[in-house]
């Protein structure tokens, strides 16, 4: 009887030892922190379909639920985080995977390489994006967990108001978090376009946005990448204005584009502004030049 008691005790001891062999708390905190350190710099969130609704489909299959864009260390390049979720189904457990792409590219439909982060045995996942905060709520080991990440770099556009300065529609307008290191100042790695002495008249100006006569974007807007600002030229009357060039504006001067005179004057004899001794003429690319 004593022997049986001893064996039972040992079996219980064994089971207890095995049962506690999990470390959910510190694992979750470290994962949450790992995500937070990255998503703090996210400037775009794409593909969120069911905001604040539990993800219930497709069952048992990994599918893309969210894409985030952020800068890498040093802020030199844009990278992409792709979130995949497998909804648990029968014996298939729920998994959240984050894939990191080292470029500004679109996410594959399912994770193709090793995950940057993996959280297994989760269910009832819900994503909520509200007031520049992204929340992930889910169940893990029968516990309800909510992770909330502030996204101070997420920009919902510029607010233009009469008599006011431009204001970014952000958590903290006019405040961004940067990822600065020595690489952030290596000029050879710059992706910003243009030199201080670029002139349209000598052919050195860079186009950063171009539209055609049907107002289709021939060149998508990249004017945020202009090192020394940008200016609009007169070519076609489009909802977003005409094409744009990077650099110092010399509009109105000889050989330079005419300054925009506004949409009311596009059919006018003088649709653009030139120096009084020059006249605006359309060049071969249907761009108004001062000659």
């Amino acid at each position, binding site marked *: 009887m004593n022997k049986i008691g001893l064996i039972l005790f040992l079996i219980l001891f064994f089971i207890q030892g095995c049962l506690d062999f999990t470390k959910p708390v510190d694992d979750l905190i470290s994962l949450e922190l790992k995500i937070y350190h990255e998503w703090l710099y996210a400037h775009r969130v794409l593909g969120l379909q069911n905001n604040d609704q539990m993800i219930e489909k497709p069952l048992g299959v990994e599918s893309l639920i969210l894409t985030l864009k952020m*800068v890498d260390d040093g802020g*030199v390049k844009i990278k992409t985080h792709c979130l995949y979720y497998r909804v648990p189904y029968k014996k298939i457990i729920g998994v959240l995977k984050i894939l990191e792409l080292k470029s500004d590219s679109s996410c594959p439909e399912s994770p193709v390489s090793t995950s940057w982060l993996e959280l297994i045995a989760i269910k009832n996942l819900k994503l909520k994006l509200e007031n520049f905060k992204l929340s992930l709520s889910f169940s893990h080991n029968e516990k309800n967990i909510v992770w909330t990440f502030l996204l101070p770099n997420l920009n919902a556009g510029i607010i233009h*108001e009469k008599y006011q*300065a431009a204001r970014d529609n952000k958590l903290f307008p*006019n405040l961004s978090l940067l990822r600065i290191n020595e690489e952030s100042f290596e000029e050879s790695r710059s992706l910003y376009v243009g030199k201080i002495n670029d002139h349209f008249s000598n052919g050195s100006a860079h186009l950063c946005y171009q539209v055609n006569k049907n107002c289709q974007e021939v060149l998508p807007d990249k004017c945020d990448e202009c090192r020394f600002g*940008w*200016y609009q030229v007169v070519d076609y009357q489009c909802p977003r*204005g005409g094409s744009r060039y990077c650099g110092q504006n010399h509009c109105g001067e000889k050989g330079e584009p005419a300054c*925009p005179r506004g949409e*009311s004057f596009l059919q006018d004899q003088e649709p653009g502004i030139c120096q009084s001794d020059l006249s605006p003429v359309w060049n071969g690319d249907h761009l108004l030049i001062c000659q």
Partner: protein
Amino acid sequence: MKNFKRFFLSIFILSLCAVSFFFLWKNLKIQWIDKPKTEQFIQERQGLERLLKNSSEIHRIWQDGEDSREWVQLKKECLNYFKINTIFDESLLRCHPMILQCIDKFYKKLDFHFVSPIGERSSQEKIYRYLTKSNTVHQQLPASGYLFTIEDNQTSQKLNLFLSDSCHEVFLPKRMYAYGEEVQEDDYKFDNFDQNIYIDRHLITHSEINEWIDFGNLDQVHGLKKKDGNDLFLPATDLTMDQMLGYCSFRGKQLMLAHYFDAATFLPMDLAENNPVKIKRSPYYWTKKKSEFKPNCHYLYANECISKFPYRLNFSEPTWTGLMDAMGGGFEAFRNPIDPDSNLKASSMHFNFKSPWHKLGFRAGWDGEGFDIRHFDFKAIEPSIISQHFEVGFRCMRESK
């Protein structure tokens, strides 16, 4: 057989004990040895949350400037530290690093501190670095502004904050405008219905040029000297036209265009009608009446005002769009794409109230290369004071998406 059973049972019990002890040891290790790691994660998260909370406070001070309680508390020490003993427009402290510098210097009970950002290269050990797209390769930089690095006192975690300095711009309402003084024949009209134009509210200050000298392209700032003390918030008036163009480019902007200055200063007769057929305009920004001239220093800082009030930036009333110093004060240079030789706002303290120069849209000429009288064309309406060295201010503008 019995011995064999005992032997087998003993082996089984010992194995069970070994496995149980192994798992128990693992658990204890997790709880005791790894516990500091868990705590470290928790502390790290708390540190990050503190940094974010402090960022929000810094952002508040940045936006509120002279209205912040920190400025009220620190004003005396801060002005002493920067050797400023004259009155200046304290709204210039919004989106300006001075208050944060003083918080770093004089506030001791904070749970964070400022550290010099990586790459800060000025001689004064500044706690910030001025960033534009021309001096960093960091992507997604919103505009020009100041980089501050804050460090949490407990966890030593750091956060790089970029505070944009765009709060001193005004939006030009979308409407029909006209260039220059009103003429009997057809006006030269233009509109900005499809453009978002932002104009600097005030003239560029020495303080702003100091950042260009410290963080801009050394080739362009040749001959310019940094200013301090009472000069910090006075207009920068010693730049050539090329340097003005270069400075605005450094900040991703353009030198103010004369016709947009007219747009932002002529008071529209009917604000509700944004596309009037005839654009009537008064030569004075404060009234719709053409004859209502006011020899008042708060509208127009003319020659007579020098003996009454010391000149300072933003002394006069704002125009209808919020632009300061539209008349009087110092000279202001533009780029005029219509009449390039009329590129100088001559209405200034160099002329008395009776001078014909005090009219909107009426401009003198400046060759942009020097500051003595031979570089200026006053069209035979010479200044009351012939200075050996005139001063010319400027401002920038930009188009936004």
